[in-house]
Each structure stands twice: as structure tokens, then as C-alpha cells.
């Protein structure tokens, strides 16, 4: 019997699903070797179908996206019951991802921004989604929008993670192959190399031995050379802090690494570590000058925790002084 696989998406942009589709011809091999029993994006199965399956009957569930709503949490728990292996697929599931940056705001300000204040909002009645809504005699249930974004591992136990925003098709193919051949590593592992990106960066030879950055530039502020280490050009490349395995795609697109593959296993807190390495390279010992140079990094949280705020030691903005 072919092993059963499930794919599911939570708070995500859909890019991870693309990565699955991007397996291209390989997808057919995978499809031939496995039985996909649940994949809402592509196949017409319902939640009830999953509920009907015996517990532990799915070999592996690949879940992408962070957890923001009650429905996502329920589905994650359901799949956890049904699947023998749960893989957090992509940065959002692994560490919260870009949606996790919403933890810098509380729910009320998010709702206010989206349903009243944003310039493109037209909502004179101030309508907001309500979990329970009755119309024409029918009762509609909407998922609850939690106050916080969580990574998948903060909701259910996760066996493996595949990093990336999105992961590369190769990592997925490798993971499936390992699953089929029973060669998965120890539980808890991240299925990507445990070295940082500079290792596989095509520009690594142009990186100087000693860097002292006196001006941090954002990509739109400069003409980016195509063959020189981006950090050496003052661009905030987080490649040194980020796991390899992405095949340096951003670098090949002439864009600095923003860290979507997350930290290596030896680092507990991606943001703090990345911040430490970048700040250390500031090219001055003079306090005023240091402050001035670092001002070119206007949004440290967004820069260093772009993909991992919910999984960070301080997983978001604190309630303010007055308490909640």
C-alpha cells in the first residue's frame, strides 16, 4: 500500500503550495509513489473525510502557514491525530513567518486598521467579521481570530520542519524521498543543511576578510553590483545567519538574504543572533557615529525577525506600561 500524505495550509500566502506544485515533473513521481489523501488547494476532499480516517493512518502531513484562527488550530490538531509524522512546511509553520509580525500589534488594532482605518477601506457601517452570524434563518460560524499568531510547533508537536519562504521543491522532494526510504533523521530535525548560507553563496569569494560597514543601504537605495558580496556593498544580507539550502536564490536574483530559512540548530534566537553579527560589523568605535550608522536600519524587528517573531523569546510587542 502506498503511504498516505496530506497537505494543508493555515495562515500563509499560498507560496508554499506553489512550491509543491513547482515539483513539476517530479510531482508526478511523488504522486505515483504516494497517496495524497488531503490537499484542499488541489483536490476536493473535505474535513469530514479526514475526520473519518483512523488515527495515525496518514504517513505524513505537511502543514504550511502559521496559526492565527480557531479553525487553523483545530485542523492542525486533527491532522496531528491522523498523521504519524507532522512536518512544519515553510517559515510560517516553522517559526511564524511574515504573518507573525502582526504580533507587534494586538487584535483590536489590527481589526481597526483593516476594517476602518486603512486608506483603501470603505466600510461606513464599521462591519466586522463575527464568529456567529445568523441570516435568513441559517446560522453561520466563522473561525475565531486569535489575539496572537503562533508557529505550528506552539500548537501541536511537530516532528520535522522544512524551512523557507517558500521552501525549495528540492527540499520537499528530498523529504518525501527520505520518508519513502525510511531515512529521515532524528525527530525534531530541520530538513535542511545546518550551515549558513554564505557557504553555498556564489559570491562568497568576493566577501572581504574584514568588513566594517559605515553605511547600511536598502536595495532601492543603490545600484547593486551583481558579482560582489551584498553585505560588502552595505546591503543587509542575512545570509551569514541563515541556514543554507535555498540555493542562494535571492542572491542569484541580486537581492540580499532576508533570513527565511531561519537559524542553524546552534542558535536559539535568530533575530538576536543576526542582530549581533550585523551590529558587530558597524565600522566605528565612536558612539555618535555608531548610532548614526545603525539608524540606517530603521526597523530592527522587521529586519531580524521577519520570519520568526512568534517563535522568538519575546514573541511580540509587550502590553504597554499600564498593563492590558
Amino acid at each position, binding site marked *: 500500500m502506498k503511504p498516505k500524505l496530506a497537505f494543508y495550509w493555515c495562515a500563509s500566502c499560498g507560496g508554499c503550495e506553489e512550491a509543491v506544485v513547482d515539483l513539476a515533473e517530479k510531482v508526478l513521481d511523488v504522486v505515483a509513489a504516494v497517496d495524497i489523501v488531503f490537499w484542499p488547494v488541489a483536490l476536493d476532499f473535505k474535513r469530514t473525510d479526514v475526520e473519518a480516517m483512523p488515527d495515525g493512518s496518514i504517513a505524513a502531513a505537511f502543514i504550511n502557514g502559521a496559526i492565527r484562527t480557531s479553525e487553523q488550530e483545530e485542523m492542525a490538531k486533527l491532522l496531528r491525530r491522523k498523521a504519524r509524522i507532522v512536518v512544519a512546511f515553510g517559515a510560517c509553520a516553522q517559526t511564524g513567518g511574515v504573518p507573525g509580525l502582526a504580533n507587534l500589534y494586538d487584535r483590536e488594532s489590527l481589526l481597526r486598521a483593516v476594517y476602518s482605518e486603512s486608506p483603501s477601506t470603505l466600510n461606513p457601517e464599521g462591519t466586522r467579521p463575527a464568529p456567529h452570524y445568523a441570516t435568513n434563518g441559517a446560522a453561520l460560524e466563522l473561525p475565531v481570530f486569535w489575539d496572537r499568531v503562533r508557529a505550528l510547533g506552539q500548537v501541536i508537536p511537530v516532528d520535522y520542519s522544512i524551512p523557507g519562504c517558500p521552501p525549495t521543491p528540492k527540499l520537499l522532494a528530498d523529504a518525501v524521498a527520505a520518508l519513502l526510504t525510511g531515512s529521515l533523521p532524528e525527530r525534531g530535525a530541520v530538513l535542511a543543511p545546518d550551515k*549558513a548560507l*554564505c*557557504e553555498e553563496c556564489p559570491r562568497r*569569494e568576493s566577501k572581504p576578510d*574584514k*568588513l566594517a560597514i559605515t553605511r547600511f543601504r536598502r536595495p532601492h537605495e543603490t545600484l547593486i553590483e551583481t558579482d560582489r558580496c551584498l553585505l560588502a556593498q552595505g546591503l543587509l544580507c542575512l545570509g*551569514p545567519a541563515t541556514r543554507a539550502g535555498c540555493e542562494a536564490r535571492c542572491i542569484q536574483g541580486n537581492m540580499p538574504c532576508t533570513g527565511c530559512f531561519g537559524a542553524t540548530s*546552534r542558535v536559539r534566537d535568530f533575530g538576536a543572533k543576526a542582530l549581533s553579527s550585523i551590529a558587530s560589523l558597524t565600522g566605528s568605535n565612536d558612539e555618535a557615529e555608531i548610532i548614526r550608522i545603525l539608524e540606517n536600519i530603521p526597523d530592527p524587528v522587521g529586519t531580524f525577525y521577519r520570519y520568526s517573531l512568534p517563535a522568538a523569546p519575546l514573541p511580540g510587542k509587550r502590553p504597554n506600561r499600564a498593563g492590558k
Partner: protein
Amino acid sequence: MTKPSARIGVYICHCGTNIAGTINVAALREFAATLPGVIVARDYKYMCSDPGQELIKADIAQHGLERVVVAACSPHLHEHTFRTACEEAGLNPYLCHMVNIREHDSWVHSGEAATAKARDLLRAAVQRVAWNRPLERRSIPIRQSVLVVGGGIAGIHAALTLANAGKKVYLVEREPTIGGHMAMFDKTFPTLDCAACILTPKMTAVKDHPNITLWTYSEVIGVEGFVGDFKVRVRRKPRYVIEDLCVGCLECIEACVYKQPKFYDEFNQGLGKRKPIYIPFPQAVPQVVVIDPETCIEFKSGKCKKTCLEACGERQAIDFGQQETIETIEVGAIILATGYKAFDASRIPYYGYGVYPNVYTALEVERLINAAGPTGGELVLRDGRKPRSVGIVHCVGSRDEHTNRWCSRVCCMYSLKLAHLVKERTGAEVYNFYIDMRTPGKAFEEFYNRVAEEGVHFIRGKVADVYPAETDGRLILRAEDTLLGQVRKIPVDMVILATGLEPQADATEVRRLFNISCSSEGWFLERHPKLAPVNTFTDGIFLAGCCQGPKDIPDTVAQAGAAAAEAMQLLDTGSIELEPNTAYVLEEVCSGCKTCVGLCPYNAISFLPEKNVAQVNEALCKGCGTCVAACPSASIRQHLFEDEQIFEEVVGVLA
């Protein structure tokens, strides 16, 4: 990494009542016994006493302890004691950790809060010590040779002291001769010894000493390595004269196509002239001439008759094609004796130096009154007249927030010396303008009294202005006499500016080259102002003389002797032990991002392109941990201060 489990012993010291009088040691011991991994917990009156240490040793043997935590005083006091005790009991010394519950707790806090703090610190220590790993102290042999940089009196004295003790010495001096500033003086305060009489024999001794290799006209251009094993590269500039062949007859100088000397003579501060081929001063060491390519016709046009070469004849010492050479030497220790530079008097425009010909610096006057100087020791003005009145301005460039804030320490004394010498040679009236008279050395005050008795006038006040009198062109010194409380204007024939001492212009480059620190003014920084005054923070590099700060010759010589003794002590130990808290790279996971490479203040980290990884030279690493905090993939770690150990402490104190 999974948390290691270990059999831990905890020892809580009473330190008499120092600790036990404040902290409830019994409660602390009971608490310690509940901590995971703790096999024995004891408290004792004086842990550092022999019976205290025996307690630990016995437990190591009896309970098979794998880790030891001692809650007592500061690790700066007794870490070594307890590590050694563990070592004697067969436990690696680095498996022992101290908790400071005295200086950081019982001596500064009271009541339950003190005991609560001790509990937190102890918990943290127990959690962290589980991660400690056995480490080896490494020891490396020390090369039995010393490099001395700078051949002033400091360098000369240090080199001779070491050479006499049988050490091999390389003395590198960048000028064509050794001697430094002292060689310029006629007499030295306060004894008025003739400088040449006491210095020249030492200079010759350097040249003749079998243990000293003297390289003048040379500069250090590269320093690698570390205490015990420095690799130094020295550039020997071409003097266009082969040192070994020149016998110092000076016939070439006589024969030069320039019949008269006509070029700026550095050694005489430009007061005299020299030829393109010259010797800085008659007693120069080595007695070897040097050709200045800037002024030599052969170098400028290639069309000189080269009468010098003819004069040298068979000796064939002159070599117009000489090239610079680079020598590489290996030494165990280095003494820096690069001296000082005199303050540039033209930086203070209102004293008119460089504007009025009769305003001189003290160094110029030192040359004028030197019997071997440009005037043969006669103190005359530029027009040949003998001055009948002379004003000496103290503190030029010193003790002034616009120039240098420090006191240069020697100017009052050498001003007194010059006052005496001027009076002796010319009989002129001498006026010394001082802010405070600083004569705090042995026999200094007596010297001051003597000069005062000789009839030198002392005016307490800072000279505000020097300007020519309209009538006779003499120079008027205007100062507020703070003792009389009135402004005085004193006309003189000659003004002498007692310029202060400054760090060498290239002190920063030299400091970087040798990887030592400077004070904010630029003087080389000693390791401790009182207890390690000739050591630097870089092991194996010592300081002597004015490069460390202004001082007179007696102090310079004393310091040079001390530096030589320190170097000798180091060499005689034969080998040195290094603390094992060094950084190391996990090569299999280092991404080669190079973040760490440039951060190390000791250049201990190098990048290996073949392997694409960073590598720490453990002998160069001092264990600051800066690179460890910066490595973005946590691939460089530090012994004794591993991430896990620090995290455990953080968690431990907060639990």
C-alpha cells in the same frame, strides 16, 4: 545539545562570620542538596583553609564527584586555590566553579534578601557547571631572544642589560645612529654630567657586544605571533654605504664635490649644515656614513664625479645601487623604547617661533651649547652676537587645554639647566617664566636653589606674548607676574621655548603594529600604572622610556632596567602557560562567513580559503569571546564560557 548529567559537590563557605553572619548557610546548604545533580552539599568555616580543601578532595575520592561548586569569595581571590585542590584530587581543574557570595552578597546586602540572592547564584552555578568540560592548560616554549625597538637611552640600556645577562638582542633604530635625544644634549640635569661622556661608552658597548645585533636606519614593518614566539619583519633602508666595509675614516665626506656643507642638518635641528654624504655627529654609532639620495647629485642626475667613491678607494664601501633589505627575526619578547617627539613650537603663534629668528626651541639651544654642535659650543645668535639677556619660557605646549594637558615633567628642570649653562657661557641676564616650578626629583630642588643663587631671575607667570621692540628690535616677553600681581614686559636678545614632550607622530601606527594600547593622548599604555608599569596588555611586550610617558633620563634608565628584567624573567621561565578560555571554530559547520575574522583585536582568527572556514590560533586568542557573540551561526565557541553555560546561568538566576 542535550544537557549533561554530572555528580556535583557543593561547598558553602562561612568565611568566619563574613558570610555566615549574613547568609543563612545552613538553609543554603539544604537548598543546594535539593538541586539536580548535587550529590553532596557541605558548609564549612573556612573553605580555603587546608581542612576546607581536604573536604573537597575527600569527597571527590569518596563520592566520585565530577563537578565542584564553591560558594565563597570572589573568583579573583580563590578560584586558583580551589581549582588546584580539585586538580590534586584528580579532577580536572576546570570542572570547578566559584560562586561569589561574599563580595557580591554578604558584604553588601543583609537579611533574607542576601540568602535569596545566594540561592539564585548557587542554582545558576550548579546548572552551569554541568556543562563544564575538562580543559588542558597549554604551554609553549619561549624563544631566547629579545627585540628592542628604538635606540635612545632607554633602548640602549635595556639592550645592554639583556645582552649582559646572556640574551640575544636585536636593537632596531630608525635613524642612522643610536643615541636618541640624549645624544643631542651637552649636559644633563641635575648633576650636569656631560651627556656624551656617559652616553657614548654605552653606545659603543652596544655596537661591540657579541649578543647584540644592531640595525640602524631600520624599521619594524610587521609583527606576527605572540608571547614567546614573535615573528618580526624589519626593513633595512639603504644607506648606500656597505656597513661592514666602511671603516669610519670619513674621507669620503671630505672628498664630496660639495666643498661646503649646504643642506639641512637634522641632528643639529637645522642650525648647522651637512653634505649629501655625512655622519649625523662625530660620536655616532655605528661609525658609518650615509648618503642622502635627496641631495646627492649622483642620485639626482647620475652625473656626479663621485669623488667620494674615489676617496673610499679600495675599501669599496660606497654602493650607489644598494637596495633595501627585509630581515625576518624570531624573538620571545619585545621591548618598545621609541621615545618621544618635542612639541612643535610653531603651533603657538604668539610665541613667534619661526617668525622671529631669535626665538629658539630648547632642543636648538641644546645643540648650540654642545661642544660638538654647529657653533662648537658657543651660544651665539643667528647673526653671531652673544646674547646679553635671555628669556626662557616654561611649559610650552604643556599644561594647556589648547595643546597638551599633561605636564611634560622635564621642562622645568632642563630650563633650569639651560639657565645655568647660558649664564655660565655668556654671563647674560636670564629670566625664567614659569607657571609652577616642578622640581620633585632627587637633588632637583637643590639644583633649583643653586640656579636661583646664581642670579637667574624667576618670574611666576605664563608668557602671553613675544614681540619685537620697536626701538632696538629686541624681543619683549609680556607676562603677568602673578606674585607681583602686575604685567611685566621684559626685553631680551634671545627667547628659549621649553617645549614639552609628545608621543611620536607615528605612535598610533606603531601601537597597531605591536597590538598594544595607547592612552587617549597617545602614550603607550602600561598594564597597570602601579603594579605592572612596564608590561602592556599584550603579553611579552614591554615598555621603556618616554614612549610610555614623559620622564627624565634617570627614570628612563630605571624603567629600561625593569623592562629588561621582565623580559628576562619571561625568557627564563622557558615556557608559558595559557589560560584555556580560548575560542574555537566548529569547522564542520562554519559557513566561512568571515564575520568573526575582522572582530578579533588580536588577529587570532584567520580564514582558510581552501577549507572555507575560519580558524582560531589558540595561542593568539586571549579569550574575550567577542567573536563568539558575533558568529551568526554559532559556529565559533569559547571554552569555559560556552553559550550553554551562560544560558544556564541566566535561567538559573531567574528560576
